Protein backbone atom coordinates (compact mmCIF):
# COMPACT_ATOMS: atom_id res chain seq x y z
CA UNK A 1 0.00 0.00 0.00
CA UNK A 2 1.07 3.58 -0.53
CA UNK A 3 1.27 6.50 1.85
CA UNK A 4 -2.20 7.87 2.66
CA UNK A 5 -3.03 11.07 0.75
CA UNK A 6 -4.72 13.98 2.51
CA UNK A 7 -5.93 14.56 6.04
CA UNK A 8 -6.25 11.40 8.12
CA UNK A 9 -9.51 10.33 9.75
CA UNK A 10 -8.72 10.09 13.48
CA UNK A 11 -10.63 6.82 13.84
CA UNK A 12 -7.84 5.21 11.80
CA UNK A 13 -5.28 5.81 14.54
CA UNK A 14 -4.98 2.72 16.73
CA UNK A 15 -2.88 1.67 19.71
CA UNK A 16 -1.43 -1.84 19.81
CA UNK A 17 0.47 -3.04 22.87
CA UNK A 18 1.90 -6.12 24.54
CA UNK A 19 4.53 -7.21 27.05
CA UNK A 20 7.02 -8.57 24.52
CA UNK A 21 8.50 -6.81 21.51
CA UNK A 22 6.72 -7.23 18.18
CA UNK A 23 3.79 -8.99 19.91
CA UNK A 24 1.36 -6.09 20.13
CA UNK A 25 -2.45 -6.48 20.10
CA UNK A 26 -4.94 -3.67 19.55
CA UNK A 27 -6.41 -2.14 22.71
CA UNK A 28 -10.14 -2.86 22.69
CA UNK A 29 -12.94 -0.28 22.78
CA UNK A 30 -10.70 2.81 22.60
CA UNK A 31 -12.50 6.12 22.13
CA UNK A 32 -9.56 8.53 22.22
CA UNK A 33 -5.78 8.25 22.10
CA UNK A 34 -2.83 10.61 22.02
CA UNK A 35 0.96 10.58 22.13
CA UNK A 36 3.04 13.54 23.17
CA UNK A 37 6.77 14.19 22.91
CA UNK A 38 8.53 17.01 24.68
CA UNK A 39 12.05 18.41 24.83
CA UNK A 40 13.46 20.08 27.91
CA UNK A 41 15.47 23.21 27.20
CA UNK A 42 18.90 24.11 28.59
CA UNK A 43 19.36 27.78 29.34
CA UNK A 44 22.68 28.96 27.91
CA UNK A 45 22.02 32.65 28.37
CA UNK A 46 25.10 34.70 29.27
CA UNK A 47 26.04 38.33 29.63
CA UNK A 48 26.72 38.38 25.91
CA UNK A 49 23.21 37.22 24.93
CA UNK A 50 22.09 40.78 24.37
CA UNK A 51 19.29 40.58 26.91
CA UNK A 52 17.56 37.68 25.19
CA UNK A 53 17.37 34.15 26.53
CA UNK A 54 19.32 31.54 24.56
CA UNK A 55 18.45 27.85 24.63
CA UNK A 56 19.68 24.45 23.52
CA UNK A 57 17.69 21.19 23.52
CA UNK A 58 18.12 18.83 26.49
CA UNK A 59 16.31 15.70 27.63
CA UNK A 60 13.58 14.38 25.34
CA UNK A 61 10.62 12.43 26.71
CA UNK A 62 7.26 11.12 25.60
CA UNK A 63 4.00 9.98 27.07
CA UNK A 64 0.94 8.26 25.72
CA UNK A 65 -2.63 8.28 26.91
CA UNK A 66 -5.87 6.71 25.84
CA UNK A 67 -9.38 6.29 27.09
CA UNK A 68 -12.00 3.74 26.26
CA UNK A 69 -15.00 1.73 27.33
CA UNK A 70 -14.80 -1.08 29.85
CA UNK A 71 -15.80 -4.64 29.02
CA UNK A 72 -14.99 -7.83 30.91
CA UNK A 73 -14.46 -10.04 27.87
CA UNK A 74 -11.75 -8.11 26.07
CA UNK A 75 -8.65 -9.59 24.48
CA UNK A 76 -6.62 -6.50 25.40
CA UNK A 77 -8.61 -4.10 27.59
CA UNK A 78 -8.79 -2.83 31.15
CA UNK A 79 -8.48 -6.25 32.79
CA UNK A 80 -5.24 -6.97 30.94
CA UNK A 81 -3.88 -3.45 31.50
CA UNK A 82 -4.42 -3.53 35.27
CA UNK A 83 -2.54 -6.85 35.41
CA UNK A 84 0.39 -5.19 33.59
CA UNK A 85 0.36 -2.26 36.01
CA UNK A 86 0.29 -4.50 39.09
CA UNK A 87 3.13 -6.58 37.65
CA UNK A 88 5.14 -3.48 36.74
CA UNK A 89 5.47 -4.88 33.25
CA UNK A 90 7.17 -2.97 30.47
CA UNK A 91 4.83 -2.38 27.53
CA UNK A 92 5.81 -2.43 23.87
CA UNK A 93 3.52 -0.02 22.08
CA UNK A 94 2.75 0.77 18.44
CA UNK A 95 0.77 3.96 17.75
CA UNK A 96 -0.21 3.49 14.14
CA UNK A 97 -2.52 4.39 11.29
CA UNK A 98 -4.60 1.47 10.07
CA UNK A 99 -6.43 3.38 7.37
CA UNK A 100 -9.72 1.80 6.40
CA UNK A 101 -8.53 -1.69 7.30
CA UNK A 102 -7.28 -3.38 10.44
CA UNK A 103 -3.59 -3.44 9.52
CA UNK A 104 -1.02 -0.69 9.76
CA UNK A 105 -1.03 1.11 6.42
CA UNK A 106 2.34 0.38 4.77
CA UNK A 107 3.98 3.59 3.60
CA UNK A 108 2.57 5.73 6.42
CA UNK A 109 4.53 6.42 9.60
CA UNK A 110 3.98 5.14 13.15
CA UNK A 111 5.43 5.47 16.65
CA UNK A 112 7.10 2.40 18.13
CA UNK A 113 7.89 2.92 21.83
CA UNK A 114 8.33 1.15 25.15
CA UNK A 115 6.92 2.35 28.46
CA UNK A 116 5.31 1.75 31.82
CA UNK A 117 1.77 2.44 33.01
CA UNK A 118 1.78 5.43 35.34
CA UNK A 119 -1.96 5.66 35.79
CA UNK A 120 -5.01 3.56 34.99
CA UNK A 121 -8.42 4.71 36.09
CA UNK A 122 -11.81 3.06 35.82
CA UNK A 123 -14.81 5.37 36.02
CA UNK A 124 -18.49 4.62 36.46
CA UNK A 125 -21.30 7.15 36.66
CA UNK A 126 -25.05 6.62 36.75
CA UNK A 127 -26.71 4.86 33.81
CA UNK A 128 -23.66 5.44 31.66
CA UNK A 129 -20.88 3.39 30.11
CA UNK A 130 -18.14 2.20 32.42
CA UNK A 131 -14.95 3.73 31.10
CA UNK A 132 -11.23 3.67 31.66
CA UNK A 133 -8.27 5.92 31.02
CA UNK A 134 -4.62 4.96 30.71
CA UNK A 135 -1.39 6.94 30.91
CA UNK A 136 2.00 5.57 29.92
CA UNK A 137 5.43 7.16 30.33
CA UNK A 138 7.80 6.20 27.55
CA UNK A 139 11.23 4.84 28.45
CA UNK A 140 14.13 4.93 26.02
CA UNK A 141 14.14 5.98 22.40
CA UNK A 142 11.07 7.30 20.64
CA UNK A 143 11.05 5.57 17.26
CA UNK A 144 9.15 7.08 14.37
CA UNK A 145 9.22 4.61 11.50
CA UNK A 146 7.65 3.85 8.15
CA UNK A 147 5.07 1.09 8.44
CA UNK A 148 6.12 -2.02 6.54
Amino acid at each position, binding site marked *: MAQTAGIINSSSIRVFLGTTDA*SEVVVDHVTECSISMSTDMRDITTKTSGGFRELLPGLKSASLSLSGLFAEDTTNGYNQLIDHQIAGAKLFIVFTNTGAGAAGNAGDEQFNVEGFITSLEQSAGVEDNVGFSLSVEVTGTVVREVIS
Partner: protein
Amino acid sequence: MKVTLQKPLNNYGWKWPAGKTVEVSNKFAAKLKKGGYLDATEQKDIKKKTTPKI
Protein backbone atom coordinates in the same frame (compact mmCIF):
# COMPACT_ATOMS: atom_id res chain seq x y z
CA MET B 1 -4.33 -6.81 11.02
CA LYS B 2 -6.97 -9.38 11.92
CA VAL B 3 -5.67 -12.90 12.10
CA THR B 4 -7.24 -16.21 13.06
CA LEU B 5 -5.17 -18.76 14.93
CA GLN B 6 -5.07 -22.25 13.54
CA LYS B 7 -3.46 -23.67 16.67
CA PRO B 8 -3.44 -22.58 20.34
CA LEU B 9 -0.96 -19.88 21.32
CA ASN B 10 0.71 -19.73 24.74
CA ASN B 11 3.65 -17.46 24.03
CA TYR B 12 4.72 -13.81 23.69
CA GLY B 13 2.61 -12.91 26.77
CA TRP B 14 -0.66 -14.20 25.27
CA LYS B 15 -2.72 -17.35 25.82
CA TRP B 16 -5.38 -17.95 23.17
CA PRO B 17 -7.25 -21.01 21.88
CA ALA B 18 -7.22 -22.13 18.27
CA GLY B 19 -9.85 -20.38 16.20
CA LYS B 20 -9.55 -17.04 18.03
CA THR B 21 -9.51 -13.95 15.82
CA VAL B 22 -7.37 -11.07 17.07
CA GLU B 23 -6.24 -7.72 15.69
CA VAL B 24 -2.45 -7.56 15.93
CA SER B 25 0.38 -5.30 14.80
CA ASN B 26 1.97 -6.01 11.42
CA LYS B 27 5.16 -7.29 13.06
CA PHE B 28 3.20 -9.64 15.36
CA ALA B 29 1.24 -10.95 12.38
CA ALA B 30 4.51 -11.75 10.62
CA LYS B 31 5.81 -13.48 13.76
CA LEU B 32 2.63 -15.56 14.10
CA LYS B 33 2.76 -16.51 10.44
CA LYS B 34 6.39 -17.56 10.76
CA GLY B 35 5.49 -19.63 13.82
CA GLY B 36 2.79 -21.45 11.86
CA TYR B 37 -0.08 -20.06 13.96
CA LEU B 38 -2.12 -18.59 11.10
CA ASP B 39 -4.39 -19.91 8.43
CA ALA B 40 -2.52 -20.36 5.18
CA THR B 41 -3.23 -17.31 3.07
CA GLU B 42 -1.14 -18.28 0.07
CA GLN B 43 -3.23 -19.55 -2.78
CA LYS B 44 -2.10 -22.91 -3.99
CA ASP B 45 -1.26 -23.28 -7.66
CA ILE B 46 -4.22 -24.62 -9.55
CA LYS B 47 -3.28 -27.59 -11.63
CA LYS B 48 -4.41 -27.30 -15.19
CA LYS B 49 -6.87 -29.90 -16.27
CA THR B 50 -5.80 -31.83 -19.28
CA THR B 51 -8.32 -33.36 -21.55
CA PRO B 52 -7.25 -36.67 -23.04
CA LYS B 53 -6.96 -36.63 -26.78
CA ILE B 54 -9.41 -38.89 -28.47
